[in-house]
């Protein structure tokens, strides 16, 4: 049957774009997170093959054939996430959208651009820049992550504070459903609704094209920074800065622990206080006005501003949050969205968690709206030390729990956060999405064994937290030794 499936797919996309080699299958069996090998007892992470269609039509053909064979299909782009969204659970086909990378022209009114799902954000940003335009927001992983990947998963990043979630920036989507139907879904579409395909991690189909709202490149843009000792005043400070209003494009906190870790890697900037960075964009007048307001707040609070060139240099580093991995050698992380007024408390608890487990922790907090903050907690580990590494993995769950205890939500679901899906999505929406799953993917071939609930390769639901899964896996491994 595998041979038939392979040859059928080869007829669609060509032999060059189907891979069955053991090396390739291994390389498409994971995302960015190093997962202990013992978990292969529970999950069939090795796909049967990988296919690279280069049009929506080919995607549709591939999905029709997969349906015929009842083969799981895992859509994948850059694979830069770490929640297991592209990690196969039940083998099957990995559908790589990397060949879908056409960037269309900006609309005549300059308000939108149509791009293929596999377009890398960095490439889109560069192309728009050449045309005097800019995206509204983008992920900090823009150097590798794709438009389709971000629309399917996270959606919060740089610029969210001003422009909201990526869902607010999409004019239309092209999606191929599990049954091979190519849908064009506009923003105002009632059935299907566009939101069903945003952030649902490939459960209903494969996003192949996105019409994104764009903006005119801002006339002026500056970066400002301020040092903060201790964490007590961070919440209030962030709230005050957030009131700077429209010209404030991004607001980010580098917690003191992260600043210290980063200082260990550079010969220049040595600092151990938290650093708050602001990006102010707009007309020259707007930027100048907001910069003055920033200076006033800093002076009133008696804080020390960061030198402008240092603030700019730190901002240029925004794409490389995992630099500290060199100190690990492994860096693990978890993200949670929390209410802004809980920032100080959450940071404190995260730091205590690190101390309790003797783990070096670095935290970035991105303010994504006046009310909420996306907290990225990174910590150092060593994947070469198997047993200790597995226990280190359990911190991911502890980090998410801290966020939850402060009224927060995990950021993204994938495989590892699927136990929180009901809570993340809300009971009602969760139920609606399950109903839609049955409609769009009646055979359950799309990215199975995750999102709604984690399942083992044998279809046994995992109702306990991933930590328990990992611990069980570890116990099994110990018994096998």
């Amino acid at each position, binding site marked *: 049957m595998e041979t038939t499936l392979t040859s059928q797919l080869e007829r669609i996309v060509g032999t060059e774009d189907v891979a069955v080699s053991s090396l*390739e299958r291994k390389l498409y069996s994971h995302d*960015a997170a190093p997962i202990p090998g013992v978990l292969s007892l529970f999950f069939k992470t090795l796909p049967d093959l990988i296919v690279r269609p280069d049009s929506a039509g080919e995607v549709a053909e591939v999905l029709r054939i997969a349906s015929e064979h009842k083969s799981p299909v895992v859509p994948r782009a850059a694979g830069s996430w770490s929640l297991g969204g592209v990690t196969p659970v039940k083998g099957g086909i990995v559908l790589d959208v990397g060949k879908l990378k056409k960037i269309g022209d900006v609309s005549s009114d300059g308000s939108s651009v149509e791009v293929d799902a596999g377009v890398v954000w960095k490439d889109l940003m560069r192309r728009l820049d050449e045309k005097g335009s800019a995206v509204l927001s983008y992920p900090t992983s823009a150097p590798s992550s794709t438009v389709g990947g971000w629309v399917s998963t996270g959606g919060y990043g740089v610029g969210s504070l001003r422009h909201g979630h990526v869902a607010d920036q999409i004019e239309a989507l092209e999606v191929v459903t599990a049954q091979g139907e190519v849908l064009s879904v506009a923003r105002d579409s009632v059935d299907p609704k566009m939101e069903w395909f945003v952030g649902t991690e490939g459960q209903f189909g494969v996003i192949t094209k996105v019409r994104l709202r764009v903006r005119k490149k801002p006339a002026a843009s500056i970066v400002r920074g301020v040092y903060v000792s201790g964490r007590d005043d961070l919440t209030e400070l962030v709230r005050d800065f957030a009131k700077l209003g429209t010209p404030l494009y991004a607001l980010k906190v580098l917690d003191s622990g992260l600043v210290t870790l980063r200082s260990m890697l550079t010969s220049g900037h040595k600092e151990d206080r938290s650093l708050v960075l602001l990006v102010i964009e707009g007309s020259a007048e707007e930027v100048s006005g907001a910069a003055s307001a920033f200076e006033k707040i800093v002076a009133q609070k008696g804080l020390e501003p960061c030198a402008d060139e240092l603030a700019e240099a730190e901002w240029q580093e925004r794409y490389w949050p995992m630099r500290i*991995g060199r100190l690990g050698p492994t860096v693990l992380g978890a993200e949670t969205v929390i209410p802004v007024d809980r920032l100080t408390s959450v940071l404190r608890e995260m730091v205590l968690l690190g101390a309790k487990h003797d783990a070096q922790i670095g935290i970035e907090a991105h303010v994504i709206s006046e009310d909420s903050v996306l907290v990225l907690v990174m910590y150092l580990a060593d994947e070469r030390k198997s047993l200790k590494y597995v226990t280190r993995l359990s911190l991911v769950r502890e980090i998410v729990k801290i966020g939850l205890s402060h009224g927060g939500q995990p950021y993204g679901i994938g495989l590892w956060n699927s136990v929180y899906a009901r809570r993340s999505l809300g009971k009602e929406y969760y139920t609606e999405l399950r109903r839609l799953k049955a409609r769009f993917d009646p055979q359950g071939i799309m990215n199975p064994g995750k999102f709604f609930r984690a399942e083992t390769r044998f279809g046994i639901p995992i109702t306990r937290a991933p930590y328990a899964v990992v611990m069980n896996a570890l116990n099994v491994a110990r018994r096998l030794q």
Partner: protein
Amino acid sequence: MKTPELDKFVDETEPWVCTQCGYCRTVCPIFEQVGWESASPRGKLYYIKELLRRTESQQGVIDDEFVKRIFQCTLCVRCEGICQTKIDMGRLWQGIRAELGSRGLWPKEIQDLFDATVTQHNLYAMPNEQRTVWAMMIEDEILPKVGKVAEVGYFVGCVAAFTGRIAGIPESTVAILDAAGVDYTILGPDEWCCGNPLFFVGGHSAAVELAEHNLEKLRELGVRTLVTNCAGCFRSFRNEYPQLLGRDIGIEVVHFSQYLARLIEEGKLTFTQSKAITVTYHDPCELGRHCGIYDEPRYVLNSLPGVTLVEMANSRAESECCGGGGLVKGTNPDMSLDIAAGRVDQAVGTGASEIISSCVTCRLQMSEAARTKDVEIGIRDIAEFVADFI
């Protein structure tokens, strides 16, 4: 699995700091061509980690496809610049190639090239006495330079010495040196390969003899400043030799583009011709990212009367590879040429009528790509271009 050869090149933690973020995929010329994870730097690193994880009892075999992919790398090291954890990619790729070599896993093309370089002292397996074949038309002027004592030594390099199509590069170089009144020497048959093809595959121990020979011959002639057009020879003398031999080599190593800048600054090289022409400059990987030389070639071009320099979308540290490095030309000639064609296209996009580079291999690669893909744009080395202005 123990990897004694790899360990000579990078710290044992180096492969482990890869975060699998995939940034490297977006700048890798090979991944751009192949598109499969196995061709990406992160894919290769993932498999290397798997090899390192193996215990002695699990040695097993090394996947043939992995071996193939390891030699599909131009060593342009653009992946290093974008890496989250700044992995020393250049050394790592050299080290893993050395590891494969120690296990008898090199592709035949690599082994042949290695053997030719070691035994014939040039990568073309040509009789080394023919090192001055490039000067066939100007023998009367060049032969007196061979083996004479002088403070400046001109190291021609295997590619320029044996490739008739680019004989214009050394011809132009000596014309410029003469015009500037530089007293220089040429090693001729005593010039051995700098060892760059061996360095590309981690064959450092075999390169010691070549390095010692070249340095000894240069010392005998009293050379204090070594000038070369070849970015690979330049990188070998400048970066590899001191590390390989564990000492300062005692000779100033200057790329010809730098030497041109020096001659212009010192007023020794003046231009009598003016040409209204728009050119773009291609930064060779081995001169740019490997050695940090970006400004001097631009200074030279901007000094030429009538010349307008325009930049490509990717230049300096972001420059795209010509596809000719890392011995990919030998193992994957078609892929190599396709990469060059991509770079030529980018140059055409600037509206320039010529691409100027500072590397014999880049010059060959892009000329071949333009010819086979029928693209109308001139391609010259900086020496050839500058010679037209004297």
